[in-house]
């Protein structure tokens, strides 16, 4: 959703980095930043999901507020004065990225790499030889041929939980379990996906920003060093399994479909699919 006000909506004007920005009432500060052309990192936010505002990488300084506020969820209110590039904001963003990198494997969280560089995040400075820090270190869960779960890459953005639950799938196969640093995305009693409520819609895979959830095809190719996004073509098509008309994006490498995504701005799917659209192509290859 962009924040631009149309004629019929009430508009509010806020100041972002000294610049007045007019957005529709109900838009977030983040939407105002986007409209003003101010690049703002996000991690737990997605266009097609309800904001959970947990990662805190999008924080901004709001005049009159003691703490920084999450721009992704805070509605813009008339007259707000927001700063997005102060030392406090930069410090918090840098520390959030650094904290994440110090605890989990961000090697495939490509969206974050530029931000980490931009904010000078150095996740390695917490540990030394003598004093290793606690990290999330779990074996990869390979429980079927469709997708894998590698929670040592999980940043706990809650996106998969939301996609599996209220925001798309209404299956509720996974939830956050445990507390604090031990919190993990899990099925009940960590049962395998085939034993859980999972219907393999792959919507969780579609929203995961870090590669913690990954198509098995992608995982296998990465394992042998053959994952080459630069050699992949993406073809848009409409799913033919039923009459709903979901848009599919087929990612093809070496003439094989290696994953299927759906555009998150699509009016029918909002980026979410079912097992047939998401994984049906496996049968194309006769697997």
């Amino acid at each position: 959703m962009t924040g631009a006000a149309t004629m019929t909506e009430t508009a509010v004007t806020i100041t972002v980095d000294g610049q007045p920005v007019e957005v529709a009432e109900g838009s977030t500060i983040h939407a105002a930043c986007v409209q003003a052309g101010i690049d703002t990192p996000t991690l737990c936010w997605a266009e097609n999901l309800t904001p959970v505002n947990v990662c805190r990488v999008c924080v901004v300084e709001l005049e009159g507020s003691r703490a920084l506020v999450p721009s992704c969820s805070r509605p813009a209110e008339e007259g707000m004065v927001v700063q997005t590039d102060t030392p406090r904001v930069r410090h918090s963003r840098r520390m959030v990225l650094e904290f994440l990198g110090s605890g989990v494997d961000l090697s495939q969280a490509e969206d974050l790499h530029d931000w980490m560089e931009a904010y000078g995040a150095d996740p390695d400075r917490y540990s030394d030889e003598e004093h290793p820090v606690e990290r999330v270190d779990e074996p990869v869960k390979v429980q079927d041929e469709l997708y894998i779960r590698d929670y040592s890459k999980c940043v706990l953005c809650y996106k998969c939980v939301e996609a599996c639950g209220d925001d798309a799938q209404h299956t509720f196969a996974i939830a956050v379990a445990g507390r604090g640093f031990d919190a993990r995305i899990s099925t009940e009693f960590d049962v395998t996906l085939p034993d859980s409520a999972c219907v393999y819609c792959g919507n969780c895979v579609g929203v995961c920003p870090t590669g913690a959830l990954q198509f098995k095809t992608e995982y296998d190719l990465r394992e042998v060093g053959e994952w080459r996004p630069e050699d992949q073509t993406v073809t848009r098509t409409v799913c033919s399994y039923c009459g709903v008309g979901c848009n599919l994006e087929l990612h093809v490498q070496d003439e094989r479909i290696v994953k299927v995504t759906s555009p998150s701005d699509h009016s029918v799917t909002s980026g979410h699919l079912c097992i047939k659209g998401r994984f049906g192509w496996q049968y194309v290859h006769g697997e």
Partner: protein
Amino acid sequence: MTDIYLGADRATDAEAAAVDEALRDRGVDAVVQPETERLYTSGRSRRLERRHYLLPALHALQNAVGWISPGGINYVAEVLGVPPAEAFGVATFYDLFRTEPPDHDGDTFHVCVDAACQIAGYDDLVASVRASGGHVHLGSCLGQCERAPALFVQGTGGRPDYVPADAEPFELPQAGDPSLRLLRRIGVADPESLESYRAHGGYEALQRAGEMGADAVLEAVAASGLSGRGGAAFPTGVKWRAVAAETGRPKHVVANCDESEPGTFKDRIVMEHDPFAVIESMTIAGLATGAQNGWIYIRGEYPLATARLQGAIDAARAAGLLGPDAAGTGHDFDIAIWRGAGAYICGEETALFNSLEGFRGEPRNKPPFPTTHGLFGEPTAINNPETLLNVLDIILDGPDDYRTRGTERSPGTKLLCLSGQVGRPGLYEVPFGTTLGELLELAGGVAGTGEFQAVLMGGAAGSFVGPDSLDLPLTLEDTRAAGTTLGSGVVMAFDSSVDMTDVVVRIAEFFRDESCGQCVPCRVGAVRQHETLVQMQKRGSLSPSRRALIDEMAEVMVDASICGLGHTAASAVRSALSLGLIASAPS
């Protein structure tokens, strides 16, 4: 809600019976909720249905068989319409629930490892419990800091929970002092008798409030200058007026009896020894705000307080002081008790709502605030029991009389929890403005070596002060100006013999253990802070770069965390460093 998928595991008869009984009990006692779509969690709305019975159902399973089994989860999931993955996510959030089969028979002996019990030597207690074959679980403050080291026994096989120390006779250190206001009935009125409570002035305030009407009660509370005693010191009159102004939706009054701030035990003593006062003051809050639903969320480690409150509710209801047209005020009001299950964070008001509603006790982002979006997303006045207690005198004697005690900006009296190395640890009541030195004197001075090293003010979320603070007047304004806090009323004293590094490292570990894990600054920051201090302890010093790192971590926790836990997680640590209580120079 979609159909719920359940795995193959089925509950045993004992498990099913325990859950059924817990729900049957609730069916009679619970405040009835209309089954409409109005549950709201961090912007997510869900059908309420019976989800808020999840916590009582999990308690029933845990108590019946000593853990929450896959079959038990499936049974609860089916009965309450909660997806098993979510029920498991809730069960694993709490310290009092196990999701693996117990490796021991019998009850679990919870021993506190926080500061007061650290210096009282909890190891000896652990050794003696183990020697008699008991299974020990080490954990956070149990709210019995004045009688450290603390023990709470969690029953299994249907046996009740209990606290051995509850069998001891109780006396307030200030017993008989005519200046006592909030504590005047404690040890005087029989906590199990409504007649006794009435004989000591009980229910006069509610009757007066009924005659005054809601607006006049709101006016009196606002004029008294009463502020919240749960830690944040928010003006109670403002909060109540905001709830009173909301119309068209069900409204709630919640007593926040989760009391888990290390060093705090005041609410426990009030609830155990003056339970009717909590019930009466909640009823007044209901009348004033127009809320009909009262909830007590009490920490799971307080069995005696829970029993006494339940007894008080039952007696009040039988006497027409709760229920339709409560006490003839024309206002309908009833109260249900929900037990927490071992999570400090559930004292944070929005985490408490989520926990009570049957979700994980994760705080919500604010705004919106509880006065408009509280329990079940509805307008809610949530208060600490000590806050509520003050209302009785404000109604009976009027705000002007109330303001004769304390200072202009901190009117009234304050309950203070004295623990650690003082002559007579326990619960004290003094007017705001009493100095720290006077208070310590009242409590028998510094015990142990007799030489005073530091005082922890406000608990783990508060800060240390040194001997130069004895003249500090205990008011909201003076403590704030001095860079410390009264918080929940913790005053924990340390003599010169205590190794403060042990104490501070444990405080850091407390936040690591108790962080809900939702937001990055606190989930990871609390761990890194603790690791840095453990390193310091091993090395015996803190390098300049590590010292700077502590400040850098503190800054992001204060600035970018979702809730007060993250905001305060570095406060005691930093105060200990700046007072030189712990190693600061590289060796």
